[in-house]
């Protein structure tokens, strides 16, 4: 390597570290999400290995099992889905779609990103020191209290989540400001692409929900370390307070994750039906009402905590009402295809997979929303099936859909079409074989978060583990394809996907590649 080349390389590493360009930061988020997803996926592979047969054969004991499931859940939510959908695609495409030069606060944007690797390191550290955080991602005290989990792990997890929360709030402020103030002339709010709307609404939800999580975590930290008794009955506190605070954040959080997915699916369905989205104002209102309703349904996670008839009836009805705006979205996607001119490209394939699988997850959500029936479903594998249908087969499909859709725009290169299709079908079959039998296990009464199960649960667990093999193998295929296409993919043609309705495609894809310092020149 010549010295000039060497110097250029050093400069480009520094450029990645210090960049404030929205595209470069978007790329960092996506790369981070891919790495975190690989880590979270590897943990889940290990979990399915343990669950493939009865007995505790691989994990050391129940505590380390609990620590693993906690890490898996937190990593997938905070370090995979959110960074990919909001930080990754949001940073890349919101400014381009609204014709802004960059985000409103480029420096903050960079800070927001770099808090995340720090936070993830803290979280991984919490697995390595002491006994790990064996509480599940919901962190209920007293199990997460100092008697339940002595040692520094829970404190590290709390600090990791604080950092991730700060990062989310920073980026939310940035998105709201950018979208409200930096649209190019004459782009009215009700002319914005639905993806921009989805990021705006998710960001507003983040601003309301994250501080509540932060408060709950701060109180937990105080209980653990400074003699607090917010959640300790012996000191007049109540664990139920934590549950209320956690789910007041937790339920909106699930919509924070799914709204940007809705946005991506809307862009893709419209593009590949060669037609603007059907019923646009209805789509915006649907997202807004999902966001509003999302704040008044939290106690559907607490039906069995010991609350009376009236609150359970209220939260049952409120939860079911969310199905109405959700239905509007699904029907509008179908109506967009109906009468359109459909091309079944790789992104479209993932989008259609999303719509059908998300509908399955939404339907089981309706079942769970009935407090009377939830009595036998709460905390069973039925719930595990439900949230994986909306997250693993929902949000994750949308991430892949968006990734394939915007890959040519982000890299100037194409991926081999057949690999995209193979990836889809293997992942589709794999995740369904993995998660569908979990409905059966849940109905049969299998509790979630157990490391060993009664022998009667063996059959479907074995099948689920087989499905996991296929799902993980197809993810590996994706990673290989990504590595190859990034270097050797064919140059993307100028009009890859045909005529576009949104502006992120306006300039030359070749120009789009964030080349470190070149980010500034590459401004839209």
């Amino acid at each position, binding site marked *: 390597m010549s010295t000039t080349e060497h110097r250029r390389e050093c400069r480009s590493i520094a450029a990645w570290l210090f960049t404030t360009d929205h595209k470069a930061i978007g790329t960092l988020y996506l790369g981070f999400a891919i790495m975190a997803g690989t880590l979270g996926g590897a943990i889940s592979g290990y979990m399915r290995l343990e669950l493939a047969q009865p007995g505790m054969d691989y994990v050391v*004991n*129940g505590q380390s*099992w*609990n620590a693993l499931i906690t890490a898996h859940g937190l990593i997938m939510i905070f370090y995979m889905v959110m960074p990919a959908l909001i930080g990754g695609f949001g940073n890349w495409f919101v400014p381009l779609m609204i014709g802004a030069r960059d985000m409103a606060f480029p420096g903050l944007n960079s800070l927001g990103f770099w808090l995340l690797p720090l936070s993830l390191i803290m979280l991984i550290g919490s697995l390595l020191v002491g006994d790990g955080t064996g509480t599940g991602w919901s962190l*209920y005290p*007293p199990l997460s209290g100092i*008697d*339940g989990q002595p040692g520094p792990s829970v404190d590290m997890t709390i600090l990791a989540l604080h950092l991730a929360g700060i990062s989310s709030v920073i980026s939310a402020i940035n998105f709201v400001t950018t979208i409200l103030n930096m649209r190019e002339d004459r782009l009215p709010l009700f002319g914005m692409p639905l993806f921009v709307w989805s990021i705006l609404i998710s960001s507003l939800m983040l601003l309301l929900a994250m501080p509540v999580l932060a408060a709950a975590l701060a109180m937990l930290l105080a209980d653990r370390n400074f003699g607090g008794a917010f959640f300790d*009955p*012996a000191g007049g506190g109540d*664990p*139920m307070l934590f549950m209320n605070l956690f789910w007041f954040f937790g339920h909106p959080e699930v919509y924070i994750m799914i709204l940007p997915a809705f946005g991506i699916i809307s862009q893709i369905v419209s593009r590949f*039906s*060669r037609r603007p989205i*059907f*019923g*646009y104002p*209805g789509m915006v209102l649907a997202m807004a009402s999902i966001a509003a309703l999302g704040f008044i349904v939290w106690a559907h996670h607490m039906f*069995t*905590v*010991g609350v009376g*008839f009236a609150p359970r009836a209220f939260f*049952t009805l409120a939860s*079911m009402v969310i199905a*109405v705006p959700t*239905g*509007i979205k*699904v*029907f509008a996607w*179908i109506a967009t*295809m*109906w*009468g*359109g*001119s*459909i*091309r*079944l490209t790789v992104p479209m394939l993932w989008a*259609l997979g999303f719509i*059908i699988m998300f*509908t399955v997850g939404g339907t089981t959500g309706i*079942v769970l929303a*009935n407090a*009377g*029936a939830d*009595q*036998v479903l*709460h*905390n069973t594998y039925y719930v595990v099936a439900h949230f994986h249908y909306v997250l693993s087969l929902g949000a994750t499909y949308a991430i892949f859909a968006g990734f394939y859709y915007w890959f040519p725009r982000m890299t100037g290169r194409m991926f081999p079409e057949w690999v995209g299709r193979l990836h889809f079908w293997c992942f589709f079959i794999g995740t369904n074989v993995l998660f569908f039998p979990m409905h059966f296990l849940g*109905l*049969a*009464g299998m509790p979630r*978060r*157990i490391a*060993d199960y*009664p*022998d*009667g649960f*063996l059959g*479907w667990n074995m099948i689920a583990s087989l499905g996991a093999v296929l799902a993980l193998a197809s993810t590996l295929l994706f990673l290989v394809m990504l590595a190859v296409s990034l270097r050797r993919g064919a140059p993307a043609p100028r009009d890859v996907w045909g005529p576009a309705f949104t502006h992120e495609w306006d300039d030359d894809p070749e120009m789009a590649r964030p080349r470190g310092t070149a980010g500034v020149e590459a401004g839209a």
Partner: protein
Amino acid sequence: MRGRGTVVLGFVSAMMLDARHGLAQAPANWQTSFGVSASETKERIVALHDHILLIGVCIVALVAILIGFALLRFRASRHPTASKVTRMPWLEFGWTIAPVLVLGAIAAPSLQLLAYESDIPDAQLTIKASGHQWFWRYSYPDNGGFAYDSIMSPPASVPAGEPRLLAVDNRMVVPVGAVVRIQVTSSDVVHSFFMPALGLQIYAMPGRLNETWTRVEKPGVYYGQCNQICGLNHSFMPIAIEAMAQPDFDAWVRDAATRYPVVSAATISAQVAK
């Protein structure tokens, strides 16, 4: 003396029942839906679930069929020019109203079920179940207040015919056909008292005394597990309820009262506070 004899008889009949009912209700491989229902609550839950499931299957099928049909009819090769229509108010109105009606058809029976579950009838018997890391303690305040621990049988020494990880040394015992009020609490972390065959689940919360009820309709042994992550041995905290005829139950109570120590209410509340 007569009491002893009835206990033995009761025990034998329970063993036979084990063979007939007990095993049937433990989860079975390849089961695709609920196991047995041994209470009206569970039967009603199953009915509501089936009702919603039917609606759900129709919705998913509708979505899948519409998408499949759109793919066939409107692919670019067959339908090269896309329609320009983007609004159809009556259609949008329709797909907003239709789900409301469907939800109404779910909400009505759902609230009925919830009311049935929430309304605790006059109980003939009260039992306290207290969660501990990692076992349950049952006490019978109506019968002199004796209490005993219920611990999972170690996998190496599970009694013949009983399922691994579900069998316990001392079961909770209830009379068939009687309304039993179950009060649930915890002495340490949150646990969940979960008994699928009876359609029961309620958290064991430290510092709170939760209440639920059941009326077991069929004699037998029913299994459940602690259903809220509670630390190291969360996987190993089963619940076994044995339902027997009233006379057998009375005999069991007489025997249990002599065998198990009495735990006063004060001891229990001290535990709860701790």
